[in-house]
C-alpha cells in the first residue's frame, strides 16, 4: 500500500493528503530507520548468520540483506520479511550445517522484532478501512444473481461459456483481477438474449400442458413433483409400465397434496392413466406412489415401475399459469388505459432497483423505457420490446459491477458505506448473490447500518439455504477444492478414479464444511471432527459400510451394472449413489486433512507427495507458506522411488542432506509423511509398493507422532495461527481485496470477538460484518485534486 500512496500523492494537491502521506510514511519508515535494534542487533545478526549466502550478486533466493542500509524498507516488503522471520523462527535458516548457529533465544528475539516491525500497526494512528476496487460479478455470482433476480433455473454462464474468472489472493471475487474483455462483453450480450428468450413467453397456449419426468419407482417408493397451477379444471395423466414380464399388475396411486385422488392397476403394457381434478391457484404437489407389490416383499430391479411422465392438462377455461419467471417480470401490460411507456415503467422501476441493487438513476430508467417504447413503435410485441429492455439492464455496468459510489462522509478520512452498498456487501459475502427484498427494504429506510440490524441480518442470512455459497465458494477456495478438477490420478494404479469419484470426494468435504457452518461448530472441528459424510462410492473408498450394507454389493446392485456394465472399474452408478449420510470418521481419519479431497489434490498422478501435503498444511491451514524452491534447484523427484530401492522417506532424507533444501523440507516433509498411510486418492494403505509405510515423525519443534491422527492432534497446538489465517482469508473473501498491514487492526478485533464464542463460524462471520473495512472505505482524494486524472476515453 505504501507504493500506492507514494504513487498517488504527488498528483494530489490538497494539504490533508500530503499530511496523510507523511503520517503513513513515518509510521512504517522513519521510525524504523532510526531504530537502534536494527543497528545493534538485527543487522549484525544478519551479517553473522545470513549474508554469506544472502548478499550481493547471486544472492540466494533473491534475498540480499546487504542492500538494506536501514530498516525503513522492511514493512514495504512485508511478505518477504515475513518469510525471513518464519525461517529464523522455526530454525530453518541458517542451514543446519552452517557454522555458527544462533541459539533459540536469539532467534526468537530477532523474529519477534521483525514481526513487530513488519506486521504491527498502531491502530489508533493508522485506522484505515482501505478501499475495494469495483468488483465485476464473477461467473458464479452472475448465475446466482440471475437466479434470484429472475427466478431462472439454468446457468447462463456455463451455457454461454463465459471465460473463466481471474483468481487473486486465492479467490475468484477480487476486484483487481476481475478483468473484462471484449469476449466477455459479447458473452454477456449473448447470455442476456438467451435469458430473455427462455423466460419471456410469446405464446401462452404452449403452457396448457405441463409435463414432468421422474425416475422409476421401486416397491413402496413415492416420487413428487411441484407444479404452479392456475385456478381451474385439469386432467392429470401418468404414463406408466410395470417392468416385470407377465400379466401381473401392481397398484400405483396418484396423490395431490398428500390426498389420494386415483389408484390404478399398472401392468407390463405401457399405458396412460388419467384422472380429472379441480385445482385452486398456486403451488401443488403431485405424488406418484408404488403402493404395494403383491408378487414380492423387496425392492427389485426387474419389478420396478417406469414413468414416462407425469402431466397435467388445463385449465379447460381461462389462461394457464406461465412460468414463474415470466409472471414475475410482467407486473404490468399495456391496455386501453395504460400506455406502453407506463407499463414499461411499472416493470422496470422495481426491476432495475433489484437488478442494480440500489435506487436506479431516473435517467437510466428513462433510457430503458425509451428503448422499450422505440422497439414497440418498430412493431415488436410488448413482450419482445420488454425483452430488449431487459437485455439492456443485464449488460448495464450497474448490473455487472458492484458499484460503490454513493459517498456519505462520516469523518475526514472514512466514508460510511451507503446502506444499499452494505446490503450488497452482505449478500455477496454470504450468498454470492444479490440482496433479497428484506435487505433492500432495510437499506431503503436507512436501517441497515445500525450494528444491531447488521448482526441480526448476518445471522438470518447464515441460516438461509443461500448461505451454501459460503461453503462452496469460500470454504471451497480456502481449501483449494477447485484444484480437484485438474488432478489426473494414474488410471492404471487407480482404476476407480473417475468423474463420479472426483465429484464425490469434493462433495464430502463440502458437506463436512456445510455441517460446521449449519451446526455453528467451533472452527477446530475442521481439523479434529470425528464425523464425515459418505455416499456408497466413498464408503467403499474408505473401506466402511454404507448404512449397514457393503458398498461393493451396492455397486453390483446399481442400475448401471444391472444393465450389463463392467464390474472392474466403478464408472457406473451405485445403488443409492446420491444418498449421503453422516458417519463417524472412518478408522485412522479425523478432520479435513484425512479426507480424500485434500489427500488427492496434494498428490501427484502416480504417487503421493509428502512435500505437497506438508506444504498444503503450512500454506492453506497455517497461512505460513514456505518460500518456493530456489531457482535452479529442481523439485524433488518423487516418481522414481524404485530407482535405488529406497523408500520415499529415505529418498526425502537424502534430499534433506542438501542444506539448501533442508531448511524448508525439514519443516514440510514430516507433516506430509504423517499422512503416508493414505495413497494418492486417499485410500488407506499399509504398504507403498513393496515397502511398509512408516508414518511416524518428528516436527521441527521436536514433538513426535506416529500416524495421521496423532499428527492432527499435535497440529491443534497451532490453533491460534490457524484461526488467524482463517480470519484473514474470510476477510479477504468478504472484501474482495488483498489485506494490507492496517487490516491487522480489523483482524485483531475479529479474533477477539471470535475467541469469546469458541471460534464458532458465526462469530467469525459477525465480526467480519461488523468490522471497519467491511462497513467503511477510505475517502478518495477530493474531486479537485483529481482534475488532472480526468481524461476522456480513447
Amino acid at each position: 500500500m505504501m507504493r500506492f500512496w507514494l504513487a498517488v500523492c504527488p498528483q494530489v494537491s490538497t494539504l490533508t493528503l500530503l499530511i496523510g502521506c507523511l503520517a503513513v510514511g513515518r509510521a512504517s519508515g522513519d521510525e524504523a530507520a532510526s531504530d537502534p535494534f536494527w543497528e545493534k542487533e538485527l543487522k549484525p545478526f544478519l551479517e553473522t548468520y545470513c549474508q554469506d549466502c544472502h548478499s550481493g550478486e547471486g544472492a540466494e533466493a533473491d534475498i540480499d540483506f546487504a542492500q538494506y542500509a536501514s530498516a525503513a524498507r522492511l514493512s514495504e516488503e512485508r511478505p518477504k520479511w515475513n518469510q525471513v522471520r518464519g525461517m529464523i523462527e522455526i530454525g530453518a535458516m541458517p542451514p543446519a550445517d552452517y557454522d555458527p548457529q544462533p541459539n533459540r533465544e536469539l532467534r526468537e528475539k530477532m523474529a519477534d522484532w521483525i514481526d513487530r516491525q513488519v506486521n504491527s500497526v498502531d491502530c489508533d494512528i493508522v485506522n484505515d478501512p482501505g478501499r475495494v476496487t469495483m468488483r465485476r460479478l464473477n461467473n458464479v455470482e452472475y448465475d446466482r444473481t440471475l437466479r434470484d433476480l429472475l427466478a431462472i433455473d439454468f446457468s447462463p454462464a456455463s451455457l454461454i461459456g463465459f471465460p473463466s474468472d481471474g483468481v487473486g489472493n486465492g479467490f475468484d471475487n477480487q476486484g483487481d483481477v476481475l478483468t473484462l474483455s471484449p469476449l466477455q462483453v459479447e458473452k454477456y450480450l449473448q447470455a442476456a438474449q438467451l435469458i430473455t428468450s427462455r423466460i419471456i413467453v410469446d405464446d401462452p397456449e404452449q403452457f396448457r400442458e405441463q409435463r414432468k419426468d421422474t425416475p422409476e419407482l421401486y416397491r413402496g417408493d413415492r416420487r413428487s413433483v411441484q407444479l404452479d397451477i392456475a385456478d381451474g379444471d385439469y386432467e392429470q395423466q401418468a404414463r406408466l409400465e410395470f417392468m416385470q414380464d407377465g400379466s401381473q399388475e401392481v397398484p400405483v396411486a396418484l396423490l395431490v397434496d398428500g390426498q389420494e385422488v386415483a389408484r390404478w392397476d399398472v401392468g407390463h403394457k405401457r399405458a396412460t392413466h388419467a384422472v380429472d381434478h379441480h385445482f385452486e391457484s398456486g403451488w401443488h404437489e403431485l405424488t406418484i406412489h408404488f403402493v404395494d407389490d403383491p408378487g414380492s416383499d423387496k425392492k427389485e430391479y426387474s419389478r420396478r415401475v417406469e414413468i414416462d411422465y407425469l402431466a397435467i392438462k388445463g385449465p379447460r377455461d381461462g389462461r394457464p399459469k406461465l412460468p414463474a419467471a415470466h409472471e414475475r417480470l410482467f407486473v404490468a401490460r399495456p391496455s386501453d388505459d395504460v400506455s406502453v411507456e407506463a407499463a414499461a415503467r411499472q416493470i422496470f422501476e422495481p426491476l432495475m432497483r433489484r437488478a442494480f441493487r440500489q435506487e436506479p438513476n431516473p435517467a437510466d430508467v428513462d433510457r430503458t423505457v425509451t428503448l422499450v417504447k422505440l422497439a414497440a413503435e418498430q412493431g415488436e410485441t410488448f413482450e419482445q420490446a420488454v425483452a430488449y429492455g431487459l437485455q439492456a439492464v443485464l449488460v448495464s455496468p450497474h448490473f455487472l459491477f458492484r458499484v460503490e459510489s454513493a459517498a456519505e462522509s462520516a469523518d475526514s478520512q472514512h466514508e460510511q458505506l451507503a446502506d444499499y452498498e452494505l446490503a450488497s456487501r452482505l449478500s455477496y459475502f454470504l450468498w454470492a448473490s444479490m440482496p433479497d427484498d428484506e435487505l433492500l427494504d432495510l437499506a431503503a429506510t436507512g436501517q441497515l447500518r445500525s450494528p444491531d440490524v447488521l448482526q441480526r441480518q448476518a445471522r438470518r442470512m447464515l441460516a438461509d439455504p443461500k448461505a451454501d455459497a459460503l461453503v462452496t465458494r469460500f470454504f471451497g477456495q480456502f481449501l483449494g477444492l477447485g484444484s480437484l478438477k485438474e488432478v489426473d490420478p494414474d488410471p492404471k494404479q487407480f482404476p476407480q478414479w473417475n468423474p463420479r469419484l472426483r465429484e464425490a470426494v469434493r462433495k464430502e468435504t463440502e458437506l463436512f464444511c456445510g455441517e460446521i457452518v449449519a451446526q455453528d461448530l467451533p472452527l477446530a472441528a475442521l481439523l479434529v471432527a470425528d464425523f464425515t459424510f459418505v455416499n456408497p462410492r466413498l464408503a467403499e473408498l474408505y473401506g466402511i459400510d454404507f448404512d449397514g450394507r457393503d458398498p461393493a454389493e451396492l455397486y453390483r446392485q446399481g442400475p448401471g451394472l444391472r444393465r450389463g456394465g463392467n464390474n472392474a472399474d466403478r464408472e457406473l452408478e451405485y445403488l443409492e449413489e446420491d444418498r449421503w449420510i453422516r458417519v463417524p470418521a472412518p478408522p485412522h481419519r479425523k478432520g479435513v486433512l484425512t479426507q480424500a479431497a485434500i489427500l488427492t489434490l496434494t498428490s501427484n498422478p502416480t504417487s503421493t507427495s509428502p512435500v505437497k501435503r506438508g506444504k498444503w498444511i503450512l500454506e492453506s491451514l497455517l497461512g505460513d507458506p514456505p518460500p518456493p524452491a530456489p531457482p535452479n534447484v529442481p523439485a524433488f523427484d518423487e516418481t522414481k522411488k524404485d530407482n535405488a530401492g529406497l523408500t520415499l522417506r529415505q529418498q526425502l532424507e537424502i534430499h534433506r542432506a542438501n542444506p539448501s533444501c533442508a531448511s524448508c523440507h525439514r519443516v514440510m516433509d514430516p507433516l506430509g509423511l504423517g499422512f503416508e498411510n493414505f495413497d494418492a486418492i486417499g485410500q488407506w494403505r499399509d504398504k507403498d509398493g513393496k515397502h511398509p509405510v512408516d508414518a511416524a515423525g518428528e516436527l521441527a519443534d521436536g514433538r513426535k507422532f506416529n500416524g495421521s491422527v496423532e499428527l492432527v492432534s499435535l497440529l491443534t497446538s497451532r490453533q491460534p495461527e490457524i484461526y488467524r489465517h482463517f480470519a484473514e482469508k474470510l476477510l479477504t473473501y468478504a472484501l474482495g481485496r488483498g489485506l494490507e498491514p492496517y487490516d491487522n487492526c480489523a483482524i485483531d478485533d475479529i479474533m477477539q470477538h471470535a475467541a469469546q464464542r469458541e471460534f464458532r463460524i458465526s462469530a467469525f462471520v459477525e465480526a467480519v460484518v461488523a468490522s471497519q473495512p467491511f462497513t467503511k472505505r477510505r475517502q478518495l482524494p477530493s474531486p479537485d485534486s483529481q482534475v488532472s486524472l480526468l481524461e476522456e476515453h480513447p
Partner: protein
Amino acid sequence: MSTRQVNRRTVLRGTGALLGLPFLEAMLPRHSAFATPKQDNPVRLAWVFFPNGTNPERWQPETEGTDWEIKPSLESLRELKSDISVLSGLAQVNARSLGDGPGDHARSAAAFLTGAHPLKTGGANMRVGKSADQIAADHYGRATRLSSIELGTEAGRAAGSCDSGYACAYSNNISWRTATQPMAKEVNPQLAFERLFGNGAAGSKPEARELLFQRSILDMVAEDARQLRQALGQQDRQKLDEYFTSVRDVEKRIDRMTEPLPFDISDQRPDDEPADIGEHIRLMYDIMVLAFKTDTTRISTFMLGNEGSNKSYPMIGVNDGHHQLSHHQNDPDKVSKIAAIDKYFADQFAYFLQKLKETPEGDGCLLDNCLVVYGGAIRDGNRHDHHDLPILLAGRGGGLVTPGKHVKFPTETPLNNLYLTMLNAVGVDVAELGDSTGSLKLS
C-alpha cells in the same frame, strides 16, 4: 477533443432525462453502409504458444542455414521444412526474475507476446504490457469481422495462486488488450466456431434487426458507463474503462457483421466435446484455418496450454503431469517424456501447417500468406531459462519472408524484434515494441 467531450457531458447532465432517444434514433439508419476494404491475399499473423519449455537437445537444430537438420521432436515437420524456419538465440529477458524472485511460469506467459516485465502481484495493480497481437489488431485488424481471436485449451485455474505470488491472469493469457487488461480466450471449439461463423452457412449473417437492437443496447450501456464514470475513483475508473472499451470493440464488431460469410462451412462446425487434448488442439487449429480462409480475422493467438500446465498426456504414455515432468533433473525417463510431449505438440502443429498449405489462395496457398510464430518463453523447463528460446516461424508472409532455414541470432536478441519485424511487414507503423531493439532480417 477532451474538453469538448467534457462539455457535452455537462450539457447532458444539465438537461437531465430523456437523453436516450436522440442517439438511439441517430443510429437507426447508419447500418448496412459498412463494407470491408478488400485486400487480395492479406498476410495473416498467428502466435501459437506452448507451456513449460522443451527438451532443447531434441528440439533445436544445430546446423545453421538451409541445410539444417530436423531434430526428433520436430520430426513431423520434415515435409514442411521449406515452409518453416527455426529462429535460435532469441530471448525474452522480461520473463526473468529481475529481482522479483520465483514465478518463471507466470512471467513467461505474461512476457511472451508483450516483451514487458509483469508486476509481481497476487491481485492489486496487475500490469504487464500491451501484446504484439493487440497492437497489430488496432492497426491491421480493422478490416475484418473480428480484429483478433484468442484461443486456448485450458480455462483459467479455479483455485489458489497460479505461480509464486503472481495473479493467475499472467499464467493464463498471452494476449493483453492494454497493459492491465488480458484478452480472455475461448477454450470451447464449438463456441469459438459459433462466435466466428454463426451456423457457418454461406452468406449467413445475423438478422439486421437483431444487430440493430444489439447495437442500440450497447450504445445505451456505454452511456450508462460514461455517466457512472464520473462518480468513481481512480481504480474503479480503470475497471469501467475496461468495460467501456470492450463495449466499443463489440460495437465495432457488430458493425462489421453485415458482411456475409463467403463460403459454406456449416459442415465443419464441431459438435461434441473433443475426445482428448490432441483433438481439442486440432479443432482449434481448424477454426484458425477457417478464420483465415474466410478472412474473418487476420490475427490469432492460441495457447496450447496455460503456462505451468500440469496436464498429462495418456494417449502417448505420459501419465505424469507436464509441469512436474519438466523439472526432470535429467532423469532419462522424464526427459524422454518431455520430448514426447514436445513432439506431440509439433505433430499437431504440422497438422495445422499442412491444412494451411492445402488451402489454395491466389497463385499459391494460404500458408504462403501467413506468418505463424510457434514457441514459448521458457527454453528448458528444468532450468527455467529464458534465452535461446524454442521459436519457429512458419509461412512466407506473402513473400516478406524466405523460410526453410535455421537462423542463429546473437545471444539475447529480444524476441520482440521478431514481432516488430512482423508488424512492420504488414504495415503497422511502430518503431518499437516492448523491449525490442530493432528488426530482424528474415528474407
